[in-house]
């Protein structure tokens, strides 16, 4: 019984973001490589470019995932460089979030131990939900 009343040691943290694919299409048309290289890693760009027709949608989903991850990480002050939050693909085609540099350090600092991402697309909209598990702060101090 006492065990059942114990508080969980991990708390969920959720972020969600919605991006219009036409916004990404416009950014690609107007800013081209400058847009790509400012926001996406070389692997994200390479994967998105495999299909010209799918490219804006893939990029929109990835930008949504980066913003959703930021909502989980909750940086104060400055934004994080979007390229420090990368959407990677497993050999089976599932997507995962990989953090680099300052983004990884922020996750450590906040006790975020795991991240999971899910996407959906419909017509002109791409949505990403990122779930993180945050270690309780009192447990982290001990």
């Amino acid at each position, binding site marked *: 019984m006492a065990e059942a009343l114990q508080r969980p040691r991990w708390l969920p943290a959720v972020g969600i973001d919605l991006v219009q694919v036409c916004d990404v299409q416009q950014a690609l048309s107007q800013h081209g490589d*400058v847009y790509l290289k400012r926001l996406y890693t070389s692997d994200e760009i390479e994967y998105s470019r495999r299909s010209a027709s799918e490219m804006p949608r893939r990029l929109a989903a990835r930008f949504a995932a980066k913003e959703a991850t930021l909502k989980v990480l909750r940086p104060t002050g400055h*934004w994080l460089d979007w390229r420090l939050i990368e959407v990677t693909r497993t050999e089976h085609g599932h997507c995962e979030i990989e953090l680099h540099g300052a983004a990884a350090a922020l996750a450590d600092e906040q006790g975020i131990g795991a991240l999971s991402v899910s996407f959906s697309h419909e017509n002109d909209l791409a949505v990403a939900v990122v779930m993180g598990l945050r270690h309780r702060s009192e447990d982290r101090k001990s």
Partner: protein
Amino acid sequence: MNEKIRTILKEHGRLTVDANTIDDNADLYQAGMTSHSSVNVMLALEGGFDVEFPDRMLKRAVFESVAAIRAAIEELTAA
């Protein structure tokens, strides 16, 4: 400078109000600018004013109003 900023906001900000008449201090995010469109605005400002926003200026407050954007551009062009 304000006119150029407003033109960029009109073309890239996806505001739900007229960028030409929005108050200098009005919150652009409240006026419809999304996180993605703020990136488009940032890139258009860099091209339009031949500047590059350093990491320390990549924050919501820098792009939240016409006045804030003007202050940032003035700081970058004065350097």
